[in-house]
């Protein structure tokens, strides 16, 4: 199994988290730490780039559920981008596209944040 990596970078008022590898119950805490750090710094405009994410389990999906409420309460959002078909299917099966904005490219999500300068939903 490929290992999991979380990489964070910041630009134009938007924080991008890049996911890489295998997101399951064991690696979910890494992503949680990344989210928690952003929330502690009061950074609520978050884009999660899933370009190199190869697998996501139910525990991985749970991490997004755990933080979306807090982020939106603070007029921010978590937007997801660059998903592979396989990862998208997992999100789709559970109906996540109804609850989360999912974009093909990271720039689109960033642009969305800058257009509204606030939560889109």
């Amino acid at each position: 199994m490929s290992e999991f990596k979380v990489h964070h970078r910041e630009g134009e008022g938007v924080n991008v988290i890049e996911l890489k590898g295998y997101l399951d119950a064991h690696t979910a805490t890494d992503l949680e730490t990344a989210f928690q750090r952003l929330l502690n710094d009061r950074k609520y405009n978050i884009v999660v780039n899933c370009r190199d994410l190869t697998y996501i389990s139910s525990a991985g999906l749970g991490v997004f559920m755990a933080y979306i409420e807090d982020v939106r309460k603070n007029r921010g959002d978590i937007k997801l981008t660059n998903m592979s078909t396989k990862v998208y299917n997992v999100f789709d099966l559970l109906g996540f596209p109804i609850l989360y904005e999912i974009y093909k490219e990271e720039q689109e999500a960033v642009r969305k944040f800058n257009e509204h300068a606030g939560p889109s939903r």
Partner: protein
Amino acid sequence: MTRLRRLLYLSTILIVLPVVFVTDVVRAVVDLDVGGLWALREVMLVGAFLAINALLDDWRKHHRRGIAKEIGRLLILTIVALIFFGTLVFTGAGDLIQGTDAAQNDSVLGMFWGTISGVVLGFVAIWTLQTVREIVLFKRRKETKRNFVVFLVLLLLSCAGASPIVPLEGGFLLSLFLPLTVVAIVVISFRQNWIVYLSRREKVYTLIYAGLLFFAGLFYVVLLFQESAAGKEFDAFSRPLLTLTKLNALLTTIYFGMAFVTTLFHLPTAEVFERKQSEINSLHNLTRLTTQVLDFNTLVETVTQLTQEVCGARSVWLELITPASSGGWKTQVVANRNITLSDLEAVGEVFDPSLREILMETKKVVLVDDTWSDRRTKSVKELGVLRGSLASVPLTSHGEVIGILHASKDLEHGFDQDDVDVLTTFGDHVTIAIENARLIARSIERERLQQELQVAKRMQKQLLPQVLPVLEEAEFAAMSESSAEVGGDYFDIVKLSETTWAIAVGDVSGKGVSAAFYMAEVKGIVLSLSKVYASPKELLARANDALHGSLDKRSFISLVYGILDTEAGTFRLARAGHCPMIYAANSGTVLVRPNGLGLGIADSHVFTESTEEQILKLNEGDVCVMYTDGITEARNPSGEEFGYDRLLRRISEVRERSADEIKIRILDTVRTFVSTGTYMDDMTLVVVKWLRTNAHTDHSSTSPASEVRKKKETKHE
């Protein structure tokens, strides 16, 4: 048997000795000289003394004492014999026996005293030999035994040499063996190693006894070797016995003289030796302790007690150090001897800043020679306790200090290097013992948890249908297995009415115990709602209401719920974020995937908005397969997922078979694919095979092909 033997010995002695005496008297009076009578007399005497020897041996075996006490007993006996014989020699009794006339030499009285002397002194000689044998052979080596046997043989030869029945020239053998016997006595007198093993107290006693025995022996020698009437009578009674007695007196003098000197030299080291001995014993006890399953409290109590004994400390206490949740560490006194907990509490507070920190940093023994003046501990002076010296030993495990063993003495400079060494060794043992006890406690706890998990596993299994319904119209087959003891997969088949059956398959996110709890909750919710709501979508919406907000934020549940109507021949289903159902018919094998959100993800409004319901019209031979993602996400050794394509293909291959066969073949395929034999996730599989529509509806149903009202499913190519 033994009683009989004793009786035999005793009667031999009691018969033979008077007989010998009477013979002597008769012979003296009548001047009888029958040939061979002398020889018979000697044989009888030897027999009597052999009987005495055996009897004594037997008695000693049953009345064994410590070596020091044995020597004391010997001393008393020797002194009694000495007084008896000394009285005979020095008092008028001697004159009485001898008289003035040589002709009266053979007086009856003289013979009587001669016989008595022989018996008493012979008895003492045998006793001495047995005692010396016992102590010489203590912790014996091969040559020790040999030396002693050589000595005995020489002794007996000397005695035999003195006998008048020996045909050789009188005195020849005696002059040959006597000096050799004396040499043998000297040789075995060097065998004094038994003294080393005596306790200090025993050594003191041995010193006194051996000293007195030396003088008694010396006096004895003087008495026996000087010319006296009593001596002559004794000689007349039995010359070999006199020789034996003389040699015995020599043995007593030489052996116990040596013993006295040796004991004297061993006395100063007695204390050290004794202490070493007790250290070894204590360590032995402790080692045994560490390997036994013991209650932790008993363990620490014993540890402090042994510590106190080993180094003669006044008070000993053991404190354990555990990391505190707030950082730093906290200490707890788990055992204390000869010092109260309240004193220790006060002491602990004043120690805190310095002594413990030093211990925890250096991980070495701290030795305080004078607690009331030492910089590190002088604060205890105000408390008025622990005056003297203190040794504190850190207990280290894996480089961490897990406790401290303290020992204190009333004396300043009370602990020497030996004490420190012992305490350190002790500390190591204590550490192991404590670690052991903790490990055992932990493994018992783990065992208990494991057993509880087994109970949970059994209970969870009972939450799943034990027996599947058998219908004319449809066949059911199902399986569910967890990767761990308990899991989050769920399925149920519930009879709603005579013609309707609810079928549910679900999966709780996450694994283990938390998932299992939610699984039980879902079962309850579905079971109760299924009696109320006839619409699958409505049921899922209400289930979502029940779960949203009550589940952990990170958790959600996917569920597919359908109602099989055996009268109408329909399967009406809704899907809450669960894996699509697979529907295999003549027209093809497809994924049935009505829109729907996982339970517990969104509120009631969003859920109802985005969840749909679908109705399948079933035809003879149609198969519906519901499952959890453990099937589709099963991985082979190269990390590839089993996936939907393989599942669809396999189902279309086997759909003609019975529901049970279909289930078995699907599982076989998945297991072959995984091939390693271990499944990463929980797996559940439910197969429903439609056999025929009821007679009533058979007429009305004209459409040969399955009618799928909602064209939402993806076709499988």
